[in-house]
């Protein structure tokens, strides 16, 4: 599987060789924990990204998203107001309709935490690692499932389960 993530070289058969740009939309079901034993917070975030293949199998992308489902613990409500990321995408050569990828991202997530009418806007910058699979639906469209892990300061961490669609331009 790891070998499959090694970016592939140029090939006439590669979709990315002809399509320099790609667009994606996806949702992340996040599981945010502030410590090992703390109650998890599970917001859902929808995001869009625009990417550029600098060479086959190596893409750079920008991502922006916001929360569509918030979560609460007692009187505390947590909503993802924004999630911005810059990522390096390494994607394998397709095996049949499937390709594996890894995402190395720098993320800044902003959460709105509300307790008894008092609101706090909390920003967490940090690194994120993602892995996943894409499935070629049509020459332009790919379905994407993946998992990401963010580690922030202290014991705060976010695991996220992702589902999305990607559209490759310019074929």
């Amino acid at each position: 599987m790891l070998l499959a993530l090694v970016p592939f070289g140029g090939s006439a058969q590669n979709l990315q060789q002809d399509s320099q740009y790609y667009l994606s939309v996806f949702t992340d079901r996040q599981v945010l924990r502030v410590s090992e034993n703390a109650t998890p917070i599970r917001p859902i975030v929808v995001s869009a990204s625009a990417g550029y293949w600098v060479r086959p199998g190596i893409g750079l992308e920008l991502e922006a998203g916001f929360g569509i489902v918030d979560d609460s613990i007692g009187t505390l409500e947590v909503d993802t107001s924004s999630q911005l990321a810059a990522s390096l995408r390494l994607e394998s050569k397709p095996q049949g309709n499937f390709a594996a990828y890894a995402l190395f991202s720098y993320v800044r997530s902003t959460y709105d935490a509300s307790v008894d009418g008092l609101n706090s806007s909390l920003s967490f910058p940090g690194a994120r690692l993602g892995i996943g699979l894409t499935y070629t639906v049509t020459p332009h469209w790919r379905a994407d499932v993946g998992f990401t892990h963010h580690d922030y300061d202290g014991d705060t961490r976010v695991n996220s389960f992702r589902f999305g669609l990607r559209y490759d331009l310019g074929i």
Partner: protein
Amino acid sequence: MPLAALTLIACDSDGDTQTLSDLVTIAEEGFTGLVINGDTETIIETGQSTQLSLEALTENTINGTAISAAMADWSSSDEQIATVDTDTGAVTGGNVDGEVTVTARFGNLTASTQVRVSSAQLVSIIVDQADSELNECSDTRFTAMGMFEGEERLRNITDSIVWTVAQASAAFDENNLLRVSSAGELEVTATREAFLDRLAVNQTATVNVLDNLEGITIVADPGQLAVRSPLQYRAFPVYSNMPDVLPDITDNLQWDIEDVATSGDFARVDNTLPDKGLVTALRSGDGLLLASCNGTQVTQTVNITAAGSGEFAGLSISAENSARDFPLQVTWQGEEIVEQLVATALFLDQEGGEDVTFLDETEWQIETVSEPGIFTLGNDDDDKGQLTIRGVGRVTLRATFIDEDNDDVVFMDTVTVISQ
């Protein structure tokens, strides 16, 4: 797409992650408010420090729950009058007399208290004790009230007092709790030590300890004593003048274990706070647990049995924090090298499988050495198994576990370390 465009603005997230962590704690625990120092005014002397306490309130309780003051961020309204450690809540009087508001913030909760700083001189101390007479083998806490020049009201200065007792039959522990054993009179002295230009002030009070301990009852916590599965035993007194009063006096007793002859050194009991009465079995067997107070005047003995086969299966030496095999090879680069070696005992568990226990009673010896003076091997409590290397050479070490009952060698292992 230029890479520079991928730059995101970083910000200080450490505070934000802590804030979210605090908010989650507050939500999980249902905290609705904070109270500092029981909502009473705090008065401190110029240059003196005191630790403010913090309690969290919940909706359905009247009394707050003590929480660590370090969980909050602290601030002072006027740092010339008093400063407060932002992390710990320790407040220190400044050079100016006056009153400040000290605020604690924990998540979305805040609380404030008034702290008055006064340069008035301490004139005398009044030692206050809850009971005029103490029970034998009990413990108690004292309060010190200070009388200050020009003030009518007494101030509680317990936090700034050093407590001592003249008699050897009693002692203050590190939490200023007086633990007493034998009956008789005690002289307890409260001293506010000298600081800055202030002289020391002290006051002595006399306390009577009753001769009323008739017996001790030992009770084990739920569970079973087994090899490497410690069990806490607790002691409760039988007082002649108050049969219904049963305070836990575990921490005030002397604990010991006598092995039944055939069992050997099968268990030990902790005699240091905060683990007094904690019994750890080294192997299966039977023994007698003794709790005594006031010398040997009152002793209670119970039979204890440790389950599990507890049979030794072997002893092996390994290098701490290292998976390297022996002979262990190290490279001498002109600097002293320290390798911590660990002896590991294998016990047979109840199912006959092997399990591991680290042995701190192992004897360590150098068996052979190529160059005298290059290798030093520690065998004291604080450096057992610590090999210090000061040059190039080869050494063979031996760790031995000896049965204290009959001085028989139970198991031993030898390893070689090469410095090159």
